[in-house]
């Protein structure tokens, strides 16, 4: 490649990186500013005085006794919200992945009526925006007496992540040659051993990719949390942090610190799983 082409490419890529990363950097910077510095004009790009005040309030605020009569400040619930988000994301992902993996496997290995149509119908279902079925689902939750429970969120997220996970795993299993399973059967393995020792390890990149997808969707969801949940202590993070806006003024320090803490788990997960993710989305590329 010619040098100037490379230079141009790097310039463009750098510009894109800055544009993409700026909000995150701004959030980190704001979360570290003392309240007095947040609204200063002209704004400081990086805090002059770094403070962890906002983080302390979020992480240890629950222990701080509030002034009598003032009620419990929203920041006291931060750890509850965080735990709620972890529970519903991990819970719904575990369910989605288990169902998707078993279903996709049977869709590629057994013959039954409608076998070919299932993955396509599933992916079609995934294309319907979730706004359309959030209210019918809410009514269902009401009749099941599940509203304002974490279970309702878990079930809701399973509904929106399962179709795509199924599709992904289906594409993956289609690329796993059936001969390796037959070879294992001839070697004397039981059906279960074949699945656990031969098929699952091959499908692992697909499972990781589908899990990350499902975790991100449920971790970042706002709509279901907003509609299904009421009590302060039951909210997921995304809905909870909106309480740092009390109708008249926004606590930007807390808001930005929450955003950073919310991004962290996904960023770490992504960092560890990146390699598998590429392999997973390039499904079918598992030639022995």
């Amino acid at each position, binding site marked *: 490649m010619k040098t100037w082409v490379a230079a141009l490419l790097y310039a463009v890529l750098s510009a894109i990186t800055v544009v993409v990363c700026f909000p995150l950097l701004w959030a980190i910077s704001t979360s570290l500013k003392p309240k007095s510095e947040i609204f200063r004009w002209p704004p400081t790009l990086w805090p002059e005085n770094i403070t962890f005040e906002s983080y302390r309030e979020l992480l240890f605020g629950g222990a701080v006794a509030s002034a009598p009569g003032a009620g419990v400040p929203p920041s006291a619930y931060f750890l509850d919200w965080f735990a709620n988000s972890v529970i519903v994301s991990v819970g719904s992902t575990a369910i989605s992945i288990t169902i998707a993996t078993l279903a996709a496997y049977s869709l590629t290995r057994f013959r039954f009526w409608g076998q070919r149509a299932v993955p396509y119908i599933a992916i079609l279902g995934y294309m319907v925006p979730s706004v359309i079925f959030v209210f019918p689902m809410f009514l269902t939750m009401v009749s099941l007496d599940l509203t304002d429970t974490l279970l309702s969120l878990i079930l809701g997220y399973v509904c929106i992540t399962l179709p795509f996970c199924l599709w992904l795993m289906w594409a993956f299993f289609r690329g796993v040659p059936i001969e*390796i399973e*037959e*070879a294992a059967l*001839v*070697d004397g393995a039981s059906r279960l051993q074949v699945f656990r020792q031969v098929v699952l390890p091959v499908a692992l990149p697909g499972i990781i990719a589908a899990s990350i997808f499902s975790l991100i969707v449920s971790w970042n969801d706002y709509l279901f949390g907003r509609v299904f949940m009421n009590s302060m202590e039951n909210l997921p993070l995304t809905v909870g942090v909106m309480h740092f806006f009390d109708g008249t003024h926004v606590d930007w320090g807390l808001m930005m610190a929450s955003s950073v803490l919310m991004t962290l788990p996904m960023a770490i997960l992504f960092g560890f799983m990146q390699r598998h993710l590429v392999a997973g989305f390039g499904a079918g590329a598992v030639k*022995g």
Partner: protein
Amino acid sequence: MTDVVVRGLSKSFGSNNVLKALDLLVPSRQFVTLLGPSGCGKTTLLRLIAGLERGNGGEILFGENRVDHLPPGERNIAMVFQSYALYPTMDVARNIGYGLEVRRIPKPERSEKISTVAKVLEIGHLLLRKPKQLSGGQRQRVALGRAMARRPDIFLMDEPLSNLDAKLRSAMRGELRRFHLDLGTTTIYVTHDQLEAMTMSDLVVVMNEGIVQQIGTPEEVYSKPANLFVAGFIGTPPMNLFPATNSDGFLKVANTTLPIQISSDLPRELVIGIRPQEVSVVSTGEPGAIPGKVWMVELIGSERLIEVEIAPKLRITAEVRAKHRAAIDDHVAVRLDPTHLHIFDPVTGKALSA
């Protein structure tokens, strides 16, 4: 020891009757090849013997025992797949030892068996690699090692050499034969390559359209083909097959009555078969030769193929020494070696004795 007996075995996929009441006896310790054109049901038969497929009728016995209700893992067979089918996430050692692993053979014994097999196959240095990091030939050896490690009663191999390049393939033919002589395990080997079948087998089973056409030694299927299919399928270049008539005990081909005496009991219409090697090209006017015109000449290394047209649309190929010159449209004659003639019934296709 383990004979494999197949009786009246049928298999169809929907309306496609792939195997039609097939009978087969594979004697213990022999290397038996299933040979036939693509799609004739060889793989299906092998998979039925392995237990990967269920038949629609008939029975399969190993020795005295019926096995057709047993799952593959309980038949004590090993199979080498055309695609090798190595376990992609396991290293070579575990691939070879997996059959022992699921049979709960203790680790030290397992390792010992793995290294013995690896030594024989000269893949000891590859034991820690994943299948992806191996060449085609190496994968083939690992697949073979996996089959050998368990000391099965029967080896089943489905075109194991077809994915190798020509040079490696001919080297592996010798090696496979050698392993069989050393191990003495009953082997059923599927191929569509007659060279493999002829060079490696104790017995060749020629199949076509789900029916066994002939079972015999390579020598027998070559020199005494049981029917027109076997005659045309075995041998390169293929046998000349052409119509002839029984003219009062003499053979008549394209208006030439040959000085070849046949039984006058034979039907009037016949099909004659003769290999190109048994046809000689002579000058016209020689007695007992069929006159014709050279239609095509091809050099194949040290030999030359001369196709002679003896009647419209009726050509006989002769294989002669390369130094034998002939030009297209030369008038020549062909002489058939009467001791190597095959006679077939044009209706049933069966071989008839002269």
